[in-house]
Each structure stands twice: as C-alpha cells, then as structure tokens.
C-alpha cells in the first residue's frame, strides 16, 4: 500500500513502506537529491522539507504522515531558468560554501517568507536556529534571505 501525496505540485505514491522515513521515500523511489541526510535525529536541519507549507524534519517523519498532504522540496522551489528569489539571492550573494545545509535552509526560509514577508534579521535567525552550518556561511545566508524578502516585496 503506497501513501499518496503531492510532491512539488505533482501527485505521487512512492513504492515504500508506510513507516519508512519521508526522507527515504524522497531520496529513494522518488529520486530526489535536494533533501539530505545529516543526522537522522532532527538536530541539524539538512533534511528539512515543507509539509503543507510548514518545515518538517523528513529524516524521522514516517511517509504515512504525508498522506494527502503537500510536500515541497528545494527541487520545487525554482530552477536555474526560473529561480526562486531565495535561490537567486543565495547565488547573488554566494551564500554557501559546501552547500550541504542549503536545501533545508532554503525550505525553512521559504516557509518564513510566506508567513512573514519582511522579517527582521532576528526573525530569520530564529527560523534558521534548527539548521546547522559547519562552514560558517551563516551571515551570508542571513543577508541572502533578507535580500530575497526585499526582492519579493510588492513595489
């Protein structure tokens, strides 16, 4: 029995056990690379995706929890030809080093900007608190999220 949900706007029903982690479904039968394994314990944020618009740790969440819901990953955020303002800002400001943490950070930031279109720096820091970055790209990341917020604001 496959669990059905929408992934980046398209209906899917991955061939995997209901109690397998959502991350395993995304990276396994669904073939994505954006959501990443970091710790498997909800402590680093590398696996964060959006479930009905809210950030969740995909490493521990059973696929069954996504049934009938909307799952969004960094692959659904934008493409090189049509980047999301966050992706554009991260590239413009070179906000990353190794980049392994970025998928989760981009998704948490996207959720923040939908909820709070013009966040303060403190609000961005708070939203990204569950996310670890070991390379020390934090300040660039903060600036990029604030830049994207500016770009997305109605003129």
């Amino acid at each position, binding site marked *: 029995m496959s669990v059905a949900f929408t992934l980046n706007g398209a209906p899917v029903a991955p061939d995997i056990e209901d109690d397998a982690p959502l991350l395993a479904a995304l990276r396994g039968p669904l073939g994505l690379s954006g959501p990443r394994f970091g710790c498997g314990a909800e402590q680093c944020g590398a696996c964060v995706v959006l479930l009905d618009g809210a950030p969740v740790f995909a490493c521990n969440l059973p696929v069954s929890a996504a049934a009938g819901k909307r799952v969004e*990953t960094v692959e659904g955020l934008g493409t090189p030809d049509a980047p999301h303002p966050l992706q554009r800002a991260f590239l413009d400001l070179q906000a990353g080093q190794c980049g392994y943490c970025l998928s989760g950070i981009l998704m948490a930031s996207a959720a923040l900007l939908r909820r709070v279109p013009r966040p303060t720096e403190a609000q961005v820091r708070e939203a990204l608190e569950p996310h670890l970055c070991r390379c*020390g*790209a934090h300040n660039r990341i903060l600036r990029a999220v604030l830049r994207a917020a500016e770009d997305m604001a109605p003129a």
Partner: protein
Amino acid sequence: MNLAFKGPMDDGKPKLPGSLHVNRRLDTWLAFHAEGLVTIRPGKVELGQGILTALAQIGADELDVALARIRIQPAATPDSPDEAVTSGSLSVQESGMALRHACADARRIFLSVVAQRTGVPAEEIAVRDGDFLAPDGRVLGSYWAMADDALLAEEASPEAKPKPPTERRIAGGSAPRLDLPDKVFGAPRYIHDLRLPGMLHARIVRPPSRGAVLREVREGALPGGTTVLRDGSFLAVVAAQEHHAEAAAERVARRATWEERDTLPDEGALEAWLRSAPRESSVVTERQAEAPAPAHRVSAAFFRPFLAHGSIGPSCAVARWDGATMEVWSHSQGIYNLRTDLAKALRLPPDSILVRHVEGAGCYGHNGADDVALDAALVARAHPGQPVRVLWSRADELGWSPFSPAMLVEVEVEADAQGTLTAWKQEVVSNGHSGRPGRGKEPTLLSASMIADRFPVPLSINPPLAGGGGAQRNAVPPYRVPALHVGLHRVMDMPIRSSALRGLGALVNVWAIESVMDELAALAGEDPLAHRLRHLDDARSRDVLDRAARMAGWASRPKQEGSGYGLAVSRYKGTGAWCAAVAEIEAAERIFCRQLWLACDVGEAINPDGIANQMEGGAIQATSMCLLESVRHDTRAVTSDAWERYPILRFSEVPQVQVEIIDRPEAPPLGAGEASLGPTIAAIANAIADALGVRLRHWPFTPDNIAKAA
C-alpha cells in the same frame, strides 16, 4: 602538508612551479576541444572551499578564454596529476601555480605553431576568447581548430611566462562559485547523490567502544532481505534499499555481543595524561642569548581537549569490485594516498584500484572520508559486480572520525622593565596531527584495525616545520625575542585516533602566544596593539594588525561592564597567509562573541569574495570551536556522538564578521582556508580577559572553565 611534506625537490630537473614539477606533461593538466571548450584537470579537489572556481579563473586568464569555456575534470586515479592531498591551504600555491604555468605554456606553444604557419610573429598575435588574431584583426586560428593537433603531448617548459599582474582579467575578480548553482537547486552533485544501477546500500555496525572485540551476532529477522557481513570485528549490513540497511543496522547492533575494555584516559584527567604519557621529544627551534634578569615573567599552560570535524554530511563512499578491479568513488582529500592505503588494507596491488573523487559535504581536514572508502570496498568485495554505497551514521561521524588531538602548550616568557621580550620558551605536547593515509607502512584506515586479518593502528605523526608542522604549527612566536626555545613532545600512546583538522596545532599555539603577549603588555602597562607592533619585524604582520585595529576602532573601543575587546595576529604556518582579528565579546550567562573584524593578506587575491568567504567561515568555525566544542568520552567510548552532545554554534549566536583583504597583486598567492582560525580564537580569549579579568587556560571557554581560571 602536500608537496611541502615531501621536502624540497632535488631531482636535477629544471624547476617548475607547484605540482607541475612532479607532473610535468601539459596534457596531464589540460585539453582543448573542437567545440570550444577547455578541460582542466587539477589533482586538488573541491572540499566546499571553492578551489575549483579559483583554479578555473587562473586557467581561463592565462589562456585568454572566457571562464564559461572551462570544464573542470574531477580528480581520478590514475590519470589526474598526483597532487597528494588537498590540505594545508596549499592548493593555490601548488595546483594554481602549476595550472598558471601550464596554461601559459600551452598558449605559447599554440601561438608559436600559428606563427610558423602564418608568418605572423608570435608576439604580435593576440588571443581573444580562444581565437588567435593578427594585428589587422584577421583570425589566424584558434585553440578549438587546433584541438586535435596533440600540441600538449610534451613536458612543460620552464621558459613559459605567465602574464604580468596588470594584464590579468579573470584571476583577481570575484567569479561566482561554479559548484553553487547545483547546490541551491538540489541537483545531484554530492557523493551522497551518486546512484549506480543495481547499487546496494550498506551501514556499518560499529563497536560500542574503542578496542571492543566482536564475539557473537545473534541471528534474527531483518527487513527487506538485508544480509549481514562480518569480518573480524568489522560488521556491516547490506540491503537493496537504504532505509532497510538503516533499520537493520539498529537491530544487528542490539544482537551483537562485544568484549569491551577500558582504553581511554579519564576525560577529567586528560591534561594530566598529556603530561604523563610516553613521549618523543625534539627541539623545533632554539636560539641562545644573554638574558638579563627579567623584570616581568609570564608562565602559563594552555590545554585543549580533542575536537571533532563535524561535517554536516556524514562520510560516504561507493565501491564496485568486479573480481579484478576495485573502483571507488570517494570524497577523500587525497585520491592517490587513499589508493595506496586501500591497496595495503585490501592486500591488492595499487594498480587494481581506481579512486574517483566526488564532492562531499564540507571537509575541514582528515575526517572519515578515507575510512568509509575502505568500508565500502570491504563490502563490495563480498558482493562482486554490484556497486555498494556506504553512508556513515551521525554517530559514526562524530564518534569514529579521526579527531584533532588534545594539546597542552606550556609557555614561559621573560621581559625587561619596559615589557620588551628577552626570552621565550614554548613546549608543545600532543599526539601527532597527521594520520593521513598513504604515507606509512601500515594503512591508517579505520576498519583496517577491525577486520580479522587486522593491522595495527599506526601512531600519527607531526610533519616537519618546513612542511607546515603538525602540533608545532605556529609554535614559533612571530615576535622579536633574543632567547628562544620551542620544544615538541609527541605523545606515543594514541588511545583516540588523531589527525589533521583545519589549522592543526596553530589553533592552540596562536591562542597561547597571543594570550601571553596580552598578559605581558598588561604587566608593562602597554596597549596590546602597541606592544605587538613594536615586537613585529614583519611589515605584513604589522599591516594586517593595524588594519584590523582600525576596522574595529580599537583606539576608541568602549569599556563597558560585561563586554570586552581582544586582538590577535598570526601568519599561518609562518609561511602562509597573514590574518589579524579583533573580537568583541559579551560575558553573560556564558560567553557570546558579538563581532569580529578580520584583516588578511594572501598576496595576490585570485578570488576576493572566495577569500572573504573562507576567512569569515574559518572565523565562525573557530568561534564555535573555542566557545563550545570538546569531544566527550568515558574510559571506553566517545560519548559526544550526536549533535546534542557535541553542540556547535547555531544561527542565533553567530557573530557579525567584517573582512578586509590587503591585496598585493605582485606577491605570490597564498591559501586562505585556515589563516583566520588561530587569530580569532586568541582574540576571543583576550576579549574575555578584557571583560572579566580572567586568563583562560582551558578550552572550551565555558563558564566552568572560566570559573577554573578565576
């Protein structure tokens, strides 16, 4: 650490820059393609530091082609140039300078052939994005039209002349990172994303403690047809689907019986262990001088526990054994060295092993990347014909990767009544800082010590100071002092595997040196900045220090209850990049670093934004290390094997960082990756002393350790 590690080259061959000297053929380094592209093939690898972008810039500039025409071929044995290890902030010097020369030589060769064919003198031909133009604008040819002419099938000539600095157009600019787009769009790029047809997934079931011996694994059901592989105390589970291997590893761990024993020193007595463990002592440098009776003396011992790398992505490898060849995909820093140790551990000839580099998550030194490659190869050997992917767990990564060793640095300095240094004595105690593969008789890969036909764990070493040093890195103070003695004591018992982590011994040595300088300045009633400046003969050290102080408004820094300012300076390895840091800290329920000002000098700045990114990243990582980090263990096992027990700095606590680069286009370029860590840590320690009047002797700078010092 790399070529420098091998010592000066005296092979009788004409000297060529960087790694070109030992990889002399031009076609090893680059190739042109008829469709208008250039492949460059560095032996150095992307670690998240952006080196491939800088190397592409150097190549494009010397060839006079657009950066977009450059393709970088990831390093792989046996065809890539052997550039040893991507470490020690040496990639620009070794790979960059090799490529600069090789590309300049390629350009020279192509132009001389065109000149011969057309009669237009080579020096009058211009290169415009790969087209060769006569003075009247006629196109005489191009790299692309002549791509198949085998013109690069020869050794580089020492005569090639790279462009003068004023003519550089691409090197020196902040080209965006070539690898970043994939990373922000979630495209498969990391080794973790490699998917080969029929690939199996394996997890390693590690012993519950160091030195534990596997006695028995009880049989039992496993999900998804998972199988168990056992070779001595090396225990793995293998499944077609990754989550089955994941779940099976947990079950098998519960069914395994191990014989355990105490092998680790008591965590609370690590400093005493460093003092009492067997050691091999040597003198790093010594200078005798008539020392007058000192007016001031500072004597202090600085202790730091083991540190972990803490990459956000756990180590990963894929291997495939076809019965004759072992093909390994790895994020190793040194593919040839890895191949050497895989050959020893697998008891195979080196030329039956291929190692291909694939990018991993951020790498800050010798982490589990090489170890997991052996794990994958061991499992692959038991599954001929099928690729096997091994991903370490978080607990493997934080619990079993090599660590930066615990260190003790004892300093004793004397000064006259004006505070002018008269004598400096520094003794450095630690395990060796390099246990990298490929250099010794025995393999240094983790599981080599666990298989049935096991190898002993070789003691880690300290490379000589001329090669950058290990524990003794930056132990020689940069300050003018008549009498000097620096001693190195390598601990010869290695209960916890230690190896290179960003900065190696420099982190503790610079902390020690810069703390003592501050204490001496205070004794002499002198400002820490002025005190340093008058002891520095090196103008570039003075320049970065002066610049950082100005950036921070040092002269007019406020004095407020609960906050403090500190500064520090260091030239990485004594031969690398210069960096000075000023830190502003807040002493509340614990210490918070609020702001850092960094001034650096890397000579020619190939990619200023990349350099700033490295300097800032290093400083933030160093802030995390000194304020929060310490490997926890009991007498059997490393217990800080989850993020909650090995906390690192999170977004809410990251300081503001300003970076300025003193650009010196005429000066040889130097690596930027490690220069900011030592000065940052020392500046934070000095800022804490400024705020609290307490001199820290124990790392990390936590309330407990501050209380110990008070």
